[in-house]
C-alpha cells in the first residue's frame, strides 16, 4: 500500500459526508446505498465513523461531473479515468468526484458505483494507489470482485490501519467465526448458556439469529452456523435489532428497530425504507416491537409488544380488530417477555432470554422448553 506524500490524514475520527448531486444512471437510493456501503468498508476496520449531511460543507463532498468541473483536473469522457478524489484536508481536499460520462451501475454490467466509491473514499482517507492488484486501492478498475460479500484485501487493511489504527473490535473478514474456531474478542459466544437473541427470522430456507452487531446464519445445507456482521449483508441497517420476520410470499424480510422498520430482499434493502411502525396501525404509544412472526398458512403477522400481541392481516394490510391481546391469555406457558418468534412445522417457537418455548397452537400448550441456542448445535 501507499499513502500520499507527507501522510495526510484526518485529525478526527468522526467525519461528515454529503452527496452533492446524483447521476442520471441510477435511482437516488441506489447511489445513497452504494456510498453508505462504501463508507462501511472503511468504517469496519478503523475507528472512523461517518454521518451524512444534506447541506453545507462536509468533510467529504461527493459529486458527479463531466469534463472540466472546476478543479483543474478535467474528466476525459467515457472510459479511462472513472473518478478521482483528494487526500484529507479542508476545502476541496477529501472530496470525491465521479465522471458522469461513465455508465454507473449497481452490478458489474457497467462501472460499479460501490467499487469505485470505496476506492475513492480510500483516497479521501489518505491512501494512495497500491501496487497490489488484489487491493481495492489498485489504480485499475477490477469489476470481477464479489459484490455481495465484498472484503478489503489485507493490503488495504494494513494501509488504512497504518493511518488510523484498527477498529475497536478488529474484523478483517466478514465471516467472523464459526463454532470450530474461537470467537473474536467482543463477539457473542454462541454456546453461552445465558445467550439470548435480539431477533430471529427465516430467510430463503435459512434461519438468521440476530445478536448485537452480528447474526448467526444457520443453513440446512451446512453443518456449522456462520457468524457474520449484520453490516456485511446490509450496510445501512442498524445493529441491536428488535425484531425480524420473513414474509416468504413476498420474498421479503422485515427488520425492526425502535419505531422504524426496513424491508430487505436477499442482500438488498428495499427502496422507501425505513418506514415508521405506526403506518402498520400501532398507536403512537408503541415505541418498539419486541418480536414478530409471519404465519404463512393464515397470512397473518403477529407482533409482540411487552406483554401483549397484535395481529396484522397481510391480505387486507391492516391490523385486526380486537387487538392487542394478552400473550398469557392466548399463549399460556410462554414467558411474557418475548425476544423473538419462529414458526416451523406448525409450531411457534418463542425465544425468551436463554429459553425457547415450543408452542402447539392447536393444543394451546407449550410442548417443549429448550435452550435458546439449541438450534446452533450447542
Amino acid at each position: 500500500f501507499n499513502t500520499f506524500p507527507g501522510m495526510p490524514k484526518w485529525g478526527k475520527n468522526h467525519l461528515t459526508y454529503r452527496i452533492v448531486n446524483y447521476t442520471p444512471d441510477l435511482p437516488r437510493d441506489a447511489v445513497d446505498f452504494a456510498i453508505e456501503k462504501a463508507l462501511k468498508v472503511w468504517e469496519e476496520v478503523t475507528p472512523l465513523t461517518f454521518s451524512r449531511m444534506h447541506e453545507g460543507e462536509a468533510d467529504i463532498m461527493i459529486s458527479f461531473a463531466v469534463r472540466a468541473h472546476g478543479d483543474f483536473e478535467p474528466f476525459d469522457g467515457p472510459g479511462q479515468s472513472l473518478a478521482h478524489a483528494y487526500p484529507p484536508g479542508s476545502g476541496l481536499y477529501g472530496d470525491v468526484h465521479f465522471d458522469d460520462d461513465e455508465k454507473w451501475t449497481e452490478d458489474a454490467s457497467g462501472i460499479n458505483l460501490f467499487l469505485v466509491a470505496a476506492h475513492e473514499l480510500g483516497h479521501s482517507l489518505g491512501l494512495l494507489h497500491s501496487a497490489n492488484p488484489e487491493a481495492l486501492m489498485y489504480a485499475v478498475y477490477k469489476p470481477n470482485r464479489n459484490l455481495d460479500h465484498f472484503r478489503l484485501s489485507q493490503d488495504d487493511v494494513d494501509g488504512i490501519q497504518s493511518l488510523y489504527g484498527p477498529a475497536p473490535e478488529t474484523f478483517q473478514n466478514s465471516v467472523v467465526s464459526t463454532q470450530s474456531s474461537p470467537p473474536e474478542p467482543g463477539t457473542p459466544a454462541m454456546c453461552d448458556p445465558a445467550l439470548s437473541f435480539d431477533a430471529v427470522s427465516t430467510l430463503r430456507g435459512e434461519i438468521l439469529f440476530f445478536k448485537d452487531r452480528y447474526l448467526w446464519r444457520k443453513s440446512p445445507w451446512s453443518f456449522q452456523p456462520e457468524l457474520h456482521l449484520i453490516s456485511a449483508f446490509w450496510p445501512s441497517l442498524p445493529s441491536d435489532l428488535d425484531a425480524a420476520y420473513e414474509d416468504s410470499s413476498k420474498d421479503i424480510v422485515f427488520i425492526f428497530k425502535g419505531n422504524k422498520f426496513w424491508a430487505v430482499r436477499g442482500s438488498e434493502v428495499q427502496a422507501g425504507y425505513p418506514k415508521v411502525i405506526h403506518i402498520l396501525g400501532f398507536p403512537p404509544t408503541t415505541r418498539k416491537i419486541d418480536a414478530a412472526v409471519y404465519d404463512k398458512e393464515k397470512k397473518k403477522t403477529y407482533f409482540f409488544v411487552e406483554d401483549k400481541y397484535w395481529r396484522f392481516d397481510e391480505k387486507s394490510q391492516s391490523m385486526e380488530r380486537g387487538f392487542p391481546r394478552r400473550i398469557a391469555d392466548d399463549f399460556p406457558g410462554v414467558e411474557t417477555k418475548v425476544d423473538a418468534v419462529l414458526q416451523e412445522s406448525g409450531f411457534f417457537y418463542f425465544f425468551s432470554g436463554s429459553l425457547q418455548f415450543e408452542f402447539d397452537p392447536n393444543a394451546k400448550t407449550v410442548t417443549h422448553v429448550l435452550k435458546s441456542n439449541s438450534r446452533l448445535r450447542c
Partner: protein
Amino acid sequence: YPLNGAMKEEDPNMDLVQQYLEKYYNLAKYEKRVFRRKDSSPVVNKIQEMQKSLGLEVTGKLDSNTLEVINKPRCGVPDVGH
C-alpha cells in the same frame, strides 16, 4: 493514400502512453519531446515507474501486459504523489 500507413513511423500506442505517463506519472513536457527516442532514459524510467506501481514486470518496455493494463479504466488519481 494507401502509402500513408507505410509512411507512419510512430507506434500507434505512443500517444496513449504519452498521455498516460503525463497524466498519472508526471511526465514533463521536455521529456515528452524526446519520447520518440527509444533509448530515452527519462521515458524508460517513467515506464519502469509505471510498471512497478501497477505491479507489473519491470521491463521499461511497452510490452503487451503493460499496454493491456493502461487500456483499462482506472482511477484518475496519479499513481505518484503530486
